């Protein structure tokens, strides 16, 4: 399927769009919409949200700390959901280690001589994987994350508008 209307076939926008649409078709194929009960919709909404985040993280690959952290989170979550036994062995121990390291990092209050620690901590919670970043990297990652989020919102808006007029 050629995309003549996309300016750049390898841009973030087109990568995200193809992946996300593929995921959407898969979600729709799984559960045909017979009843539009709120629970159904809610379940689908969760899946679509995960698919959106996953498509964005896969479009960025491992180039960014936040995308790596998000992929790691998604993978560990999917492992835990599929097989609780294996999750106990691998996923939970890894998560425990990661949580411990992040706790250690956050307990050492990153004052660093700059005056905005509370805002930086709040930002760390927003950006995936932000707990393990120093302020410099955090600002970098935030800029890229904002760019990717904006792209995501634009594309999803286009898709939703296209299918709901």
């Amino acid at each position, binding site marked *: *399927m050629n*995309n003549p*209307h*996309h300016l750049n076939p390898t841009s973030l926008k087109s990568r995200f*769009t*193809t992946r996300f*649409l593929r995921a*959407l*078709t898969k979600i*729709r194929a799984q559960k045909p*919409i017979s009843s*539009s009960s709120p629970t159904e*919709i*809610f379940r*689908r*909404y969760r*899946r*679509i*949200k995960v698919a*959106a*985040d996953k498509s964005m993280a896969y479009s960025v690959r491992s180039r960014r700390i936040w995308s790596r952290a998000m992929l790691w989170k998604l993978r560990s979550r999917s492992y835990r959901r599929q097989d609780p036994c294996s999750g106990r062995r691998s996923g939970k121990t890894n998560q425990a280690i990661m949580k411990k390291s992040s706790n250690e990092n956050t307990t050492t209050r990153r004052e*660093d*001589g*700059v*005056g*905005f620690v509370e*805002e*930086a901590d*709040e*930002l760390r919670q*927003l*950006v995936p994987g932000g707990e393990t970043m120093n*302020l*410099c990297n955090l*600002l*970098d990652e*935030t*800029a890229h*994350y*904002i*760019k990717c*989020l*904006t792209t*995501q*919102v634009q*594309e*999803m*808006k*286009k*898709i*939703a508008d*296209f*299918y*709901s007029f």
Partner: protein
Amino acid sequence: MESNAGTLETRSNKTALEREEVAALESLQFTDEIHCLMSAPATDNASSFTALLELPAPQAVQLIHSPDSAKLIAAPAPNVEDFKGGFHFPSNGGLIERAARFSVFAGEGNNNSDSPEATSNNSSANLQKAVKSEPAETDSSQPLISDPTVENRGIKRKDREKVKGQTKKSKTTVKESSDDTEKLPYVHVRARRGQATDSHSLAERARREKINARMKLLQELVPGCNKISGTALVLDEIINHVQSLQRQVEFLSMRLAAVNPRVDFNFDSVFTAE
């Protein structure tokens, strides 16, 4: 005039800059004043030339007076190559060239475009640019010596300090111009006025510069952040923006979950709509 300039050179290298200014710009009436001023700060406080050299004062003075610049190169000090340039006793041509440089009010790619005080006064801009590019300068001793010249030019000291505060930004260009002769494995950073020059504060300052640069980028990304001043408020704005974007993603995915699939999700139709 040249012999007088020569004697001025031999005195103390740290004030080579002001001496050359004097020689090039002023008449000889100020040389006596300059002599008194120059001899005074030789025993100055820690942020002077001797501290930069990280040597005891008498040894440093000895190094100055000896025309052996090779010793100074080996010394582990910042801005060494700048000093080395200052050891050349400029001939007539050098002084005249500097005089020409001072008198030419041409914007030679002055990086301090964001300092309005400097650009508003061309002479001050060139003077301070020449100040910046001259070797062998110290922060604390400079105002003492350059006061007569500064006052004569009618430049306020505040402007000088502000422009000097901006010198850090253009340190790379200064370094490139002076690094042609000798490359040393040090990061040569020009200290701002009244700030320490040890490695820790230098690294700290470099870090802060990086953080400020990134904050500027973020301000451009987030709409409406340009008018806000103060990094904490800007960060609050950024946090709000990220939160709103994440909420928008959730809202749109809810919308997509509720939409009726009248048509199959064929990619071409979606792409043609975009």
